[in-house]
C-alpha cells in the first residue's frame, strides 16, 4: 500500500488513536511516514498546549470587586427607576380616577334639585324626620348606577313645593332625594310595591302636607342602592330590579 493510503491512519495515531498492525508495519518500514507520525504527534501536543494557552488567564485581583460594583450600580439604577416611575404612575392613576369619577358622577357634585313631578324631595342638610316616621315615598335617583348610602342616614324628605310656585325645568337625576334608614327600607319598598299595584291608596299613608301622591308613586324609580351596613329584614338583594 502507498503512503497516501495511511494518511488518515497516521493522523488518527497522532491523536492518540490505536495503531493497527498494518500501520505499525508500514511506519516501521517507511521513514517518511514515521517522520510524519512524529510531526503530527508534536503538532497534536502543540494544539493541546495552544488551546490551554489561549484559554489560560487568571482573573485580575480586582475582578470580583468590579463585579460587585456593577451589581450594586445596577441595583441602584433599578431602585432609581422605581423611585422615578412609581410616583408618576401613582399620579397618573389618581388623575384617571378623578376624571372617571367626574365623568360618571357629574350629578353628585351638584346640589340636588327638586323635580316638578317628584314633589317630595329632601335635603339632608335641612333637617330630617325622626326614624319611624315614614317618608312620603322612597324617592331615589332613577336609572342610576348603584350608590352607597350610609345606613345611618335617616329617612328624610323635603316638603312638597307649593302648587303656585313657578315650574322649573326638570333637572337631571341627582342624588337620592329620599334617604331611607336601613331598618325602614324594607317597609318603604313594600309600601311602594303595594301602591304600584293599587293595593294602597297613597293618600292614606301620606303625611297630610304631601298630596296628591298618585303621580309621585308612578314617577318613582328605586335605584339599586347598596348600603354599607346590612339592611333590615326583608331587604332586597343587590341586583334585583326594584321598579
Amino acid at each position: 500500500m502507498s503512503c497516501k493510503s495511511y494518511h488518515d491512519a497516521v493522523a488518527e495515531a497522532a491523536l492518540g488513536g490505536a495503531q493497527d498492525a498494518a500501520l505499525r508495519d508500514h511506519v516501521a518500514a517507511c521513514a517518511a511516514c514515521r517522520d510524519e507520525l512524529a510531526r503530527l504527534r508534536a503538532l497534536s501536543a502543540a494544539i493541546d498546549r495552544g488551546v490551554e494557552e489561549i484559554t489560560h488567564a487568571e482573573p485580575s485581583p480586582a475582578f470580583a470587586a468590579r463585579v460587585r460594583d456593577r451589581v450594586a450600580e445596577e441595583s441602584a439604577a433599578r431602585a432609581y427607576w422605581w423611585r422615578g416611575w412609581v410616583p408618576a404612575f401613582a399620579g397618573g392613576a389618581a388623575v384617571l380616577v378623578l376624571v372617571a369619577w367626574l365623568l360618571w358622577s357629574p350629578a353628585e357634585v351638584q346640589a340636588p334639585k327638586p323635580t316638578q313631578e317628584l314633589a317630595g324631595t329632601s335635603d339632608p342638610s335641612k333637617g330630617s324626620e325622626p326614624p319611624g316616621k315614614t317618608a312620603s315615598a322612597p324617592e331615589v335617583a332613577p336609572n342610576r348606577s348603584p350608590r352607597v348610602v350610609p345606613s345611618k342616614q335617616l329617612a328624610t324628605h323635603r316638603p312638597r313645593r307649593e302648587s303656585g310656585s313657578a315650574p322649573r325645568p326638570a333637572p337631571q337625576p341627582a342624588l337620592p332625594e329620599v334617604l331611607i334608614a336601613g331598618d325602614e327600607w324594607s317597609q318603604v319598598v313594600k309600601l311602594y310595591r303595594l301602591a304600584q299595584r293599587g293595593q294602597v291608596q297613597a293618600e292614606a299613608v301620606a303625611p297630610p302636607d304631601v298630596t296628591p301622591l298618585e303621580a309621585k308613586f308612578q314617577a318613582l324609580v328605586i335605584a339599586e342602592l347598596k348600603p354599607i351596613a346590612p339592611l333590615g329584614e326583608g331587604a332586597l338583594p343587590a341586583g334585583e330590579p326594584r321598579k
Partner: protein
Amino acid sequence: MDAAAHVLPESLVSLDAALEREFEQRLADSSMLAVRVAMGVLRNRADAEDVAQEAFVRAYRSFAGLRDREKFRGWLVRIVWRLALDRIRAQKRRERRELEALREPAPPSVEDVAASREFQRRLADAIELLPEKLRIVLTLAGIEEHNLAEVSQLLGIPEGTVKSRLHLARQRLLEVLR
C-alpha cells in the same frame, strides 16, 4: 402588629442575604472559569474580563430564579460563551469596516512574525472555523485540563459525546494545521 407581620419580612430579608452570600461564593468559585471561557473566544484578557463581568451581572439578575443552583457553573459558561461570541462578532464587523476604510491591511507586528505567535494565531483561526459544538468542548477541555467528566457536567451532555466531539475537533485542527 400580628405575628405574621413580624415573621414575613425577616424571612424575606434573610432569604435575600442567603442568596447574596451564595452568589458571592459562586463568584469566588467561578471567576476563573468565566474569564478563561471568554479568553477561549476573545483571546484578549481585557475583553475576556469585561465579558466575564457582564456574565456575572446577568447571572446575578436571574440568580434567585435559578432552580438548580448546582448547575450554576454550566449556566455561567453558556452565558459567557454567548456574550463572548457576540463581542467577537461585533469586533470583527468593526475591524472589517475599519479595514475597508483603510483599504490596506495593517502590517504584521514583530510578535506576529515570531513562530510561536504565528502558530498561536493560526491555531486560533483554525479553532474559530470549528462548529460551535466542537469549539466549546475543545475550549472547556483546555480549561479543565481534559477532565471530560467536568466538561460533560458543565455542558449537560454525556461524557461519550464530549469525548467524540473533542476528538473530532482535534482531528479537524490537525488537518488544518498539518
